[in-house]
């Protein structure tokens, strides 16, 4: 008995003293190996009497199991220590910079357009597009702006040089020619918005020779001024994402609408460089609108006796400037990286009505 106990304590001491895998292996061979001490003890089992075997057998097997476990435990201990030592050597300075990745941005014009599209899609408006270079006929004549109409002076037009076939065209001064194209090609009911680049010979602090418009057009039976008012109000409320918005419609004049009205929004500009909407004594111009002129409907092949419609147009750049507090339209087109990053939007911030148009 004492022999086995002494042997076991000897072996366990040897195992725990093993400093590395090799020493542990030596200890294993010296005990559980073919010629090991534990194996030798187990070999004597055959020579024992049945009675002796009953008492000694469990002791022998117990010794073998204890040693086996001890070796496995020590092996795992040694492995952990070795891994710890290796990992310690692999330490990196986490304050070093990772490779930088540029943060991409969406231009405010694009973002605001997506916002506008989201709102109008909800109201059942499609998105119509047309070319930047337009027929004089579509940009002016079909819209009831004859060549000598004083309204042509309201819009200083860029002209493109004469073409090979002798024709000459304009850079569209508004996106209304897209309405013309839509009416020429579609039977009512029509509900579209037409966003896009527009051009006028104008450049100063508040004007850029290129800017963006979005126009809306509805043509259907029984459309009246009340529908126009409702649509503009709903749109503005949704777009500016503020509850206390106050709009004012005032009569105006455009050759392509009759009646014509312009829209202003109540604001406070008493603090220099800051605009607050919904309060104050100032009015900010949003854009023009009106019932589509009978002549325009007729010019576009729509029976004005049967159908009526309304249209309105706002400046996209202007909407972006107002909503997001950008002071200068010219900087929209300068591509200054600092501006793009400052005013740009994150790629995955896609405006939706369920999630909100903006953060």
């Amino acid at each position, binding site marked *: 008995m004492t022999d086995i106990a002494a042997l076991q304590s000897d072996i366990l001491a040897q195992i725990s003293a093993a400093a590395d895998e090799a020493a542990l292996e030596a200890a294993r061979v010296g005990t559980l190996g073919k010629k090991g001490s534990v194996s030798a003890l187990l070999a004597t089992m055959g020579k024992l009497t049945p009675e002796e075997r009953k008492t000694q057998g469990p002791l022998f097997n117990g010794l073998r199991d204890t040693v086996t476990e001890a070796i496995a435990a020590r092996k795992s201990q040694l492995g952990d220590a070795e891994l710890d030592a290796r990992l310690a050597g692999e330490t990196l300075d986490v304050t070093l910079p990772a*490779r930088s990745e*540029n943060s*991409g*941005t*969406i*231009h405010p*014009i*694009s973002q605001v357009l*997506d916002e506008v599209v989201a709102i109008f*899609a*909800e*109201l059942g408006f499609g*998105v119509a*597009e047309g*070319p*930047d*270079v337009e027929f004089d006929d579509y940009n002016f004549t079909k819209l009831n702006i004859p060549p*000598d*109409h*004083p*309204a042509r*002076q309201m819009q200083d037009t*860029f*002209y*493109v*040089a004469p*073409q090979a076939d002798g024709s000459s*065209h304009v*850079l569209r001064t508004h996106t209304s020619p897209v309405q013309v194209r839509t009416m020429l090609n579609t039977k009512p009911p029509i*509900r579209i918005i037409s966003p896009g*680049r527009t*051009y006028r*010979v104008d*450049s100063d602090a508040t004007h850029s*020779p290129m800017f963006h418009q979005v126009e809306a057009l509805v043509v259907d039976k*029984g459309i*009246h*001024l*009340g*529908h*126009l*008012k*409702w649509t503009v*109000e709903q749109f503005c409320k949704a777009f500016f994402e503020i509850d206390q918005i106050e709009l004012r*419609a005032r*009569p*105006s*004049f455009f050759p392509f609408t*009759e*009646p014509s009205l312009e829209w202003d929004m109540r604001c406070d500009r008493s603090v220099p460089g800051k605009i607050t909407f919904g309060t104050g004594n100032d009015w900010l111009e949003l854009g023009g609108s009106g019932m589509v*002129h009978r002549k325009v409907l007729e010019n576009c092949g729509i029976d004005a006796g049967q159908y009526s419609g309304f249209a309105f147009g706002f400046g996209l750049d202007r909407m972006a400037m107002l909503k997001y507090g950008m002071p200068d339209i010219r900087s929209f*087109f*300068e*591509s200054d*990286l*600092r501006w*793009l990053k400052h005013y*740009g939007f994150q*790629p995955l911030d*896609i405006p939706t009505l369920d999630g909100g148009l903006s953060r």
Partner: protein
Amino acid sequence: MKFTLSWLKEHLDTEASAAEIGDRLTSIGLEVESITDPGAGLKDFIVGEVITAEKHPNADKLRLCTVSDGKDTLQIVCGAPNARAGIKVVLARPGTVIPATGDALKIGKIRDVESRGMMCSARELLLGEDHNGIIELKANAKPGATVVSALVEAGLLSSDPLFDVSITPNRGDAASVFGIARDLAASGLGKLKTEKVQPVAGKFPSPKTITLDFTPENKDACPIFAGRLIRGVKNGPAPQWVQDRLKSVGMKSISALVDATNLIAQDRGRPLHVFDADKLSGNLHARMAQDHEQVLALDEKTYVLDSETIVIADDSFARGIAGIMGGMDTGSFEDTKNVFLESAWFDPARIARAGRKQAIISDARYRFERGVDPQFVLPGLELCTQLILEWCGGEASDVVIAGALPPPHKPIAFDPALVESFGGIQVPRDEIKRILEALGFVVDSNWLVVPPSWRHDVDGPADLVEEVVRIYGLTDVPSVPLARGNAVAAPVLSKSQRRTRAARRGLAARGFNECVTFSFIARDQAKLFGGGDDARQLSNPIASDLDALRPSILPSLLAAAARNAARGFANLQLFEIGAAFESGMPEAQKTVAAAIRTGHAERHWQKGGEGAELFAVKADLLAALEAITGAPMSAPITQGAPAWYHPGRSGTIAMGPKVIAQFGELHPKVLATFDLKVPAAGFEIFLDAIPDAKSKGKAKPLFAPSPFQAIERDFAFVVDAKLAAGEIVKAVKQADRALIDTVSVFDVYEGKGVPDGKKSVAVAVRIQPKDATLTETEIEALAQKIVAGAVKLGATLRS
């Protein structure tokens, strides 16, 4: 259009305040740009009374005053020589903002004596140039009262608010104080004062006659021309009230004769012209100018006219550009004794055209091109005659008239129900009628409506609805929801719009910053990108370097990159989605998504990394295409792209004849033109050229992964150095399209161990059995086939 409240009240009997009138004007379509209240900035100033004025103990030229503000007495140091006891002054107390400086007044110490206010000069209040002393108000001014009325009393301030109203081009009739009063009266804000103009009886027949010398096709250029001679006038300054009135709206007073016409133009919207009759040779004629005929106009410039311009001529020469500007040689001046007064009606379109062509901006043109009231040709003439006789003396001849008034406007059959069905508002029939009549329309019992002679913008029922709604009140139109088509709104974007959006968000997600740049660029730059031809030039560019429609977006982005690089930001990823132009025809434009990378690899402690090089933008391009189409790009990539790319480091992706995209490093010569000193690479995706994927319904194909182990085999081929790796990949794939899943090039080597002019290309082939695990023999057979395919390209298996 400017007028003062008192001027308006000449025509409108009203008790309304300036603010009420302003709001009403805007609400009926006469948009108020501003109302200037002359006393607005002086509300905080009060009347003070100087109680004592002694010499300042420490200064000879200063006075130490005590001033009463009605309640308390303030100690004020003042340098004005007229500061003396007993006078009433304009007193500013601490905190009051002084208009001349814009600063609030503070309690100060002047030569050790505290001063608790200021007595103001005219200049300090911006009421004049006088700074020699402080303002002395009338003795009856009440200390403590606000100073505005006392200043008006003293004749230093006008009490008259000034309105500036912007007139839309259709409302020529509102370019007159009377016209504005008429609109306000119709809206219920007062009563219009109408007084018939009494004709002046002629004392003698006019020695000058008028003829209309037009060919039949130009007959409508000037249907009526009236005039009369007034002899023995004495020109000089107009009466003071006239000068003041003109000045109050920013017009210059010139002489009694000219002021008379200007006053009537502003007041009644009727332009007139006064000739010096002694300088006219013979009689007057209205006619079309001859081509190249010249006129020296009142602005002392000589205008060369053409046959589309109407002129007023005498027997010898054209003496004025009709409806736009009179002539210098026959104008009225100080010594003018006999005048011929002209009142006519000209065709608005011709005036607009001529005015635009000659680039003359004048009050006459402004009114004539918007259309003046033909019925007022004669009353205007009479009114002006009265003023001239009154101010300058003399006697008037009979009136001579050539032509006749144009016929009245055609009646419009109006259904008053349209006000509700089209205007969206219920207005009682009586009120509709009242509004139209107040505006001068004649309404008969059958709702046949004749527009007044001064309105040229009303020719249909919708115009009448507008008149009623704007006067009745647009704010009262109730908002009515549009009918909702679908309970859940249906998607609205077209495929190409969704593609554009995917390209935009996809590129931004890869780290590109979106730009929006002008569609026009410099012609020289356009030429580098296949454009710059005559057909893509603008006839009237805003600047000489923005004169060409861009053939590509890349030059816009390169210019942006150069500007940013100049500011110290050279490592850039920029993109834009927009139009590039193939000619100057409508629809000859394509939607392009273009992007560039510029600069060198980032300086990083781990070394390595990529700069603006070919394979960086190739990866960007393929990612963008995948975002756009929703699937990896399978179209072949071929070597080479247009001339603005590096000839050896650029490629093209095409589907059949349609080029979908081109990419590569940009040509160094191009970069030099943009003064870009760092490398740049980029790509252009032609969004319209990408074919629509065939719609296979919404369900995706069934997921059916192979249960069998895939195996990978590597092959290294020695091939001609010029052979494209893509060819090898293609050949390898063709060995068995069903079994071979992917083929990827993982090594390219030239140098030691490989013969000159050759390269080694190593590919990893992933084989994916579908029906059963492949046997060694089958694998060997496939390998043989792969090698055989490569050998056809001249490859040998590298041992």
